[in-house]
């Protein structure tokens, strides 16, 4: 209601680690700032139907320190743990990371790979949609005016499942992804991949689910041949630009390299190896 009342000049304040930088540079001049950190649904992590209901305004460090969630979704935690620095992660939230809609957001590829479903409240009630449908381009989301992402639902994990997120950055920390890859896969008892989701970040106008990458893994034992096909599919799917952080050629190649490496980490985790 507050959002609609502010006629589009309203801005949601969760962690604020992107919003305050944009306000300081004058890129954004909000009429009203709406602090959502005290709304229960948005600020808690609860088990629900075998999966997890994660509040959109839960600070990253809160999630990283949640033992159950970290055990279930190590890949999502990989992504969250690369946002900014310890200080930034003390404030930044997964909801903010998604709705700021930077193509290079670190938690988004892992959340997409995990198959997370976003719950959105707006003037005409609540609706659910997969996370990958929310980013619409650099700084733009598909949300209607007045709509707010309140929480995410991460589904139950079948046995022998593993997820992972890797990114390329020139520095080991305090950096923005030049390339980001999230992989989530499930194996059957013979080690054959029965389900997979692969998402790329920072190599297109928005983070994206890449079905061709999943197809390269499903039905295989995620062997060298499958990994080569996965790498080729990732490089093919990438439509990067040259910008101050990386070149097109570099992003296309490294998308493939990281897809392979992330798949191997997810594979190890699916097999229960550390």
């Amino acid at each position, binding site marked *: 209601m507050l959002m609609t009342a502010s006629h589009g000049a309203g801005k949601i304040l969760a962690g604020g680690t992107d919003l305050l930088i944009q306000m300081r540079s004058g890129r954004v001049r909000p009429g009203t700032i709406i*602090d959502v950190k005290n709304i229960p649904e948005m600020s808690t992590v609860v088990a629900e139907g075998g999966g997890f209901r994660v509040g959109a305004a839960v600070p990253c460090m809160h999630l990283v320190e949640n033992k159950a969630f970290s055990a279930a979704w190590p890949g999502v935690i990989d992504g969250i743990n690369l946002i900014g620095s*310890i200080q930034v992660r003390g404030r930044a939230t997964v909801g903010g990371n998604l709705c700021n809609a930077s193509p290079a957001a670190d938690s988004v590829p892992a959340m997409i790979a995990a198959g997370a479903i976003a719950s959105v409240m707006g003037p005409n009630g609540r609706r659910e949609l997969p996370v990958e449908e929310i980013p619409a381009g650099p700084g733009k989301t598909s949300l209607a005016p007045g709509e707010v992402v309140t929480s995410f639902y991460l589904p139950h994990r079948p046995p022998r499942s593993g997820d992972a997120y890797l990114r390329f950055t020139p520095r080991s920390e305090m950096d923005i992804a030049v390339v980001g890859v999230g992989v989530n896969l499930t194996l059957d008892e013979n080690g054959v991949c029965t389900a997979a989701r692969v998402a790329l970040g920072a190599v297109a106008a928005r983070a994206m689910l890449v079905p061709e990458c999943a197809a390269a893994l499903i039905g295989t034992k995620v062997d060298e041949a499958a990994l080569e096909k996965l790498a080729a599919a990732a490089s093919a799917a990438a439509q990067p630009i040259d910008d101050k952080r990386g070149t097109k050629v570099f992003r296309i190649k490294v998308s493939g390299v990281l897809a392979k490496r992330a798949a191997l980490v997810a594979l190890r985790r699916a097999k229960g190896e550390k």
Partner: protein
Amino acid sequence: MSKQHVSTVINGNPVEFLCQPQQTLLDVLRNDLNMTGTKEGCGTGDCGACSITMDDRLVCSCLVLGVEANGKKIETIEGMSSGDGLHILQQKFLEHAALQCGICTPGILVAARSLLERNPDPTEEQVRFWLAGNLCRCTGYNKIIEAVLDAARVMRGA
């Protein structure tokens, strides 16, 4: 915009202030409360010189609005040494010459204390990754890492 009233606790002392809604907590600390120990290096959360803890959570005060401090417990560098003596970390930073110009030191000390509260026995790599958010241009980090590890040893009584 009219100022908002905020009541908070800073370094154990109840503090009330008025601030503009868009005013950052860093700006309030330095320019309204004259607590200039917390430094501004960038204003965009990229250097860590303005690190404080809010409800024991390590954050950049340049990325927190003054109004968000309402009802919170803030700890800054000025609160790190109790009346009679320096905190072990402050003492070790001096002993190891872990600072040269010292502009990054307040932020790093607050961050290091926050680390040791969570992990009393960190490895070198854990210290390096925890402090990755605090930029230093003078020391090359060597002596900072050594001082934090040494302080951790003493605090563990090892």
